[in-house]
């Protein structure tokens, strides 16, 4: 259970009905804490890893160690306790923690490998390296942009996965297939038209229109729900939603 007396005032926090991983990570309940940190790790491990590779120019092996150590510190040392959403976005806070950790690691030759002796998290670093090989390693000046883009990529990818499983559970695989063909597929030089998709899937154009509207509406809802889970207040959520949906930074 969350110990209300220990919970810091986050300023404009969500209603109690909304689950927030930031709040959960501060919970005294180990299961709640683990669930919250799993969510944060799932959204942020790739941005952190690629940021370390780009900004701190670490080798793949070194960046893996640092990433493991960073998330171990979130889990075991309660680094998130220091986070105040009134002062910075979670992304900004995490980046500054990564920078501090990298600077300390430079000085501390006795640094323990693989999360300071903890059981390492199961993170697919080979996958991240493969993506970096595809996109190229950003220069240090572009490391912040890389972090932001990877954050969006991770969050959208998680939303796409949830959308796929959610629609499959309702027997609406065709809705996801249409969405994937129209909004995810890079195979063709141009996007298929609704008429193309109608022919391909044996549907009417109206069906395609309606199915795509449903999938997009559901995708937006899931993406914003995921975002809400990884922000600590309504205000932070709104600001992050603006970034996620393509508004210029404030």
């Amino acid at each position, binding site marked *: 259970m969350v110990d209300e007396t220990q919970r810091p005032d986050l300023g404009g926090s969500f209603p109690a009905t909304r689950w927030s991983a930031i709040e959960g990570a501060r919970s005294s309940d180990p299961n709640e804490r683990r669930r919250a940190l799993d969510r944060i790790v799932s959204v942020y491990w790739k941005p952190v890893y690629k940021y370390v590779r780009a900004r701190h120019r670490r080798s793949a092996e070194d960046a893996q160690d640092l990433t493991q150590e960073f998330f171990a510190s979130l889990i075991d040392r309660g680094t998130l306790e220091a986070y105040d959403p009134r002062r910075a976005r979670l992304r900004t806070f995490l980046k500054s923690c990564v920078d501090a950790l990298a600077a300390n690691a430079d000085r501390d030759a006795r640094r323990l490998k693989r999360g300071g002796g903890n059981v390492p998290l199961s993170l697919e670093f080979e996958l991240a390296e493969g993506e970096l090989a595809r996109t190229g390693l950003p220069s240090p000046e572009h490391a912040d942009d890389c972090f932001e883009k990877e954050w969006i990529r991770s969050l*959208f*990818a998680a939303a*796409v996965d949830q959308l796929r499983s959610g629609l499959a559970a309702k027997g609406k695989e065709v809705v996801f297939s249409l969405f994937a063909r129209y909004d995810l597929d890079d195979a063709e030089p141009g996007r298929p038209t609704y008429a193309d998709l109608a022919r391909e899937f044996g549907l009417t154009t109206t069906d395609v229109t309606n199915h795509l509207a449903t999938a997009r*509406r559901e995708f*937006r809802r899931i993406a*914003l729900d995921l975002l809400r889970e990884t922000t600590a207040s*309504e205000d932070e*959520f709104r600001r992050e*939603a603006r970034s996620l949906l393509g508004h210029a930074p404030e």
Partner: protein
Amino acid sequence: MSWLSDDALSRLRSAASAPDLSGTRYRLLQEVGRGGMCTVFLAEDPSLARRVALKVLDVPDESGELALRLTREAQVLARLEHPGIAPVHDVGRLPDGRVYYAMKFVEGPRLDAFAASSATLAERLRTFQRIAEAVAFAHDRGVLHRDLKPENVMVGPFGEVLVMDWGLAKSLLPASSDDRTPSGASVLPTSEAGPHTGHGAVLGTPGYMAPEQERGEVEQLDARSDVYALGAVLFFLLAVRNPPAGGSVPPIAGVPRPLLAVCGKAMAAEKRDRYADASALAAEIARYLDGRRVEAYPESLIHKTARLYARHKVAFWLIVTYVVVRGSLLFFTGR
């Protein structure tokens, strides 16, 4: 977890932010602008075969506060039926829960682009006069704009103006009041437009905000606060640059001193030193355009003579011609 290419990310961003217009009468054409909490889209209304602008709230709104604010903005616009204010056609909620309103789609340059054009001084002043008249109408209906600036005014192809973006507008009427106030009634602050504009909230644009607005003294705002912003807009039209900080009006090359005095009076630091409302400012500009004396500028005899000469030049030369001809006749013929 799925790998998403940069192109797919971009498509997903569009997919997540584009309004789902299924169940509405509109068909999406393209995004035309973003700002604040909303995105504006160009859409088609096939039933009336016309294009409209859809202003869609696209920031998550758990508390419903922003939806209320946008709805109020639409309601404020709906009661401001004036040629200088873009009309609102419809307000509603999309299937995904986002609130939107449809309004006239306005094409044409913004006032800042117009000011940078080769428009003459008289054209600039007539344009300003129309802006002030639109704002005066809003004041008469008990509404303050609170964010007047060149970017929020469109100039149509026939010189017509449209005052846009009433997102920060403040209703000065109690919620139960009738929409129409008697013409000329004093505009006194009585209620807030929305929960975002509580005491101390600084909303507006620096350089165009009256000092009391910059200080966040919401309860002190009245028609004269918009008059300040109008003075800053007039300065922009005359100088083609933003007014200096602090509100003092420096000389502008080629701009007559009476107009600078009008600017200075509109942008006075103290409310009591400004024009009483936008109507008074519009009337002052009308006087200048008619060659009459402006209240803001105490004339010397020389200036008064020059102004009267400019105003009555034809009559003056007719009289001079008559006197010369009459004198010549008298001199040469003795008649």
